[in-house]
């Protein structure tokens, strides 16, 4: 069971893929993902295996200038 960081917070997770992680953590809306500072497109989330120590970023739209 890998320890990964999601948006800077360390968690023990059961999910093996990025897709599963998003579902387990309850992210349902429009988000974009990166693992270890590399973009992971939506279409590759299901096949993207998570490894111990991965740093996952899950971003959503926000206000900007």
């Amino acid at each position, binding site marked *: 069971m890998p320890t990964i960081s999601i948006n800077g917070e360390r968690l023990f997770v059961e999910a093996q893929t990025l897709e599963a992680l998003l579902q387990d953590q309850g992210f349902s809306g429009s988000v974009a993902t990166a693992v270890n500072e590399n973009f992971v497109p939506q279409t590759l989330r299901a096949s993207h295996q998570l490894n111990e120590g991965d740093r996952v970023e899950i971003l959503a739209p*926000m206000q900007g200038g």
Partner: protein
Amino acid sequence: MRRFYGEMLPNGLMLGTAQYPSPAVMASAFRESGAAVATVSLRRENAQGSGQVFWDLIRALDVRLLPNTAGCHSAKEAITTAHMARELFSTDWIKLEVIGHADTLQPDPVALIEAARVLSQDGFKVFPYCTEDLVVAERLIEAGCEVLMPWGAPIGSALGLNNPFGLRSIRNHFPEIAMVVDAGIGLPSHAAAAIEMGFDAVLLNSAVAKAGDPVSMARAMACAVEAGRLAFDSEPLPARDMAAPSTPVLGQAFLS
């Protein structure tokens, strides 16, 4: 008014979405100003999906989106963020910001050029936030940029156009390139002056969002951009050092 990567915009007002007193005020500011483009950003989502509310709001504006890479301090970071933005906002337009100086948020020219090159090759339509530096401008154009966004003054300063000579210079040296004055604009007269100089658009945020009345200030900026555009197209009277009467002197009565 030049095209932006081949696209014609209805007007030259680009408006940020940050720092409004409320989402409703933001929406009104966009409606009342008719801004052609809204800049947006990305942040870490939480499980409650709080970013989705903003997303719904922004889609309802029915306006062209220009996501930014605000907060990125390296080319790598900006490139990854750009990819995430492209997927999330379904647009290949990206306002490329690579912060070089923490205090002033001034862009890092080296990283900016590098990120612009990579992103252009990846099919992005890059709108780089830059200074009025001619050489950096040339490198950005070589890197594939068809639009430049030189600053007027530091972000949030409301100082207007700090270096009019430099802005005229960058505008005149690259006549084919669409240009947006981004950052520093505080008043409608600043926005109008930028367009009068030949810039195609202005991008502003805090001048509107942090005004006492953001909605009427948004309208003010829309008027200013229209004023500048009309003036630029009207062939203005050149300034001259000496004075001339504006009433014809023929047929002057002698009453003294």
